[in-house]
């Protein structure tokens, strides 16, 4: 009888202990299932930043060569006329930026630039949202040193009001992706979009450190060696 009582007491203690442990573990289990399995940083809120100035500057060196390539820089000109071609000359016909970045009067971007690339050499490349940055936030790349561009990119007052999460998501923006589908006869950016995105996210999530001076061996106008 005494043995039976002891067993019953042990059983109750065990049940209570499991209940307490279960209650404590419940939020952890829920959180674990709430997080997505993959390494998709765009889903992190707030984005995870683990500061590493060396890795960050190294990643930005790659990012800079892409942003200063003609596929990106041509639509981030210093003036109000977009650039054109692999040599980034002023766009023939001198189309103007306009207030919204979509041109003026009979010279709207979409009057020539269709939703998709027009087939053939020397034809207008296409994108459903073809435009320059707007007049009140020009987001200039042309002529920026790596230091200047890095600071500009992470300043919401100069980057289109983007926070870290929006900056990360911007790597997959339709017009950014369009740089890797430029139409016939145009050189691609110096690395794949996947490599660029990886470098971009690495730069941002390691603290978005700006290089202290002009990147060694690069031309500050083009970013290329």
């Amino acid at each position, binding site marked *: 009888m005494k043995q039976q009582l002891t067993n019953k007491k042990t059983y109750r203690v065990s049940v209570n202990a499991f209940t307490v442990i279960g209650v404590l573990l419940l939020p952890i289990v829920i959180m674990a299932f709430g997080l997505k399995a993959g390494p998709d940083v765009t889903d992190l809120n707030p984005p995870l930043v683990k500061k590493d100035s060396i890795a960050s500057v190294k990643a930005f060196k790659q990012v800079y060569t892409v942003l200063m390539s003609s596929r990106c820089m041509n639509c981030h000109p210093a003036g109000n006329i977009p650039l054109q071609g692999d040599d980034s000359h002023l766009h023939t016909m001198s189309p103007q930026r306009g207030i919204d970045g979509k041109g003026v*009067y*009979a010279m709207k971007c979409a009057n*020539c630039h269709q939703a998709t690339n027009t087939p053939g050499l020397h034809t207008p490349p296409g994108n459903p949202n073809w435009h320059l940055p707007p007049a009140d936030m020009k987001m200039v790349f042309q002529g920026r040193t790596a230091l200047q561009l890095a600071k500009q990119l992470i300043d919401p007052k100069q980057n289109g009001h983007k926070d870290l999460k929006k900056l990360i998501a911007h790597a997959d923006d339709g017009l950014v992706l369009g740089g890797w589908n430029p139409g016939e006869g145009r050189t691609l950016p110096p690395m794949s979009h996947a490599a660029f995105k990886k470098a971009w996210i690495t730069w941002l999530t390691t603290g978005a450190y700006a290089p202290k001076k002009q990147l060694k061996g690069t031309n500050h106008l083009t970013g290329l060696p």
Partner: protein
Amino acid sequence: MTTITVNGKQHQIDADPNMPLLWVIRDIIGLTGTKYGCGVAQCGACVIHLNGDAVRSCVTKLSRAAGQQITTIEGLSKNNDHPIQLAWNEENVPQCGYCHSGQIMSAAVLLRANPDPSDADIGAGMAGNICRCGTYQRIRKAIHLAADLQRKENASK
């Protein structure tokens, strides 16, 4: 089958949705006022209005115009009396005339958006329309005159 409205009239077009709108307008509908110049959106001879925008019909696919409103030079006014047309006539702007359907269609968009354009505004709005005869000075003069005509017309209403 693609439905488009050209100068107020609806058309059912049985053609490849990728066909340039210029081909549809000229060869299928039969309105030949709109001209073929370069075929790659470089010269402006083929400008028409698509929902009021001065698009280049040589690179605009039929599919983009589905269900939309198109205006060609033939439909710009009922009696060829749009202020731009009157001014073009008054100033004898064309020489060979080939590019002027596009010039007039672009100028009409400029004047609608800016009723009193400066020389710089005209330059910005018309820079994409090329004239091999070099009638640019007369084009500029005529747009200023059209702005005057439009002002007088509005004042008399």
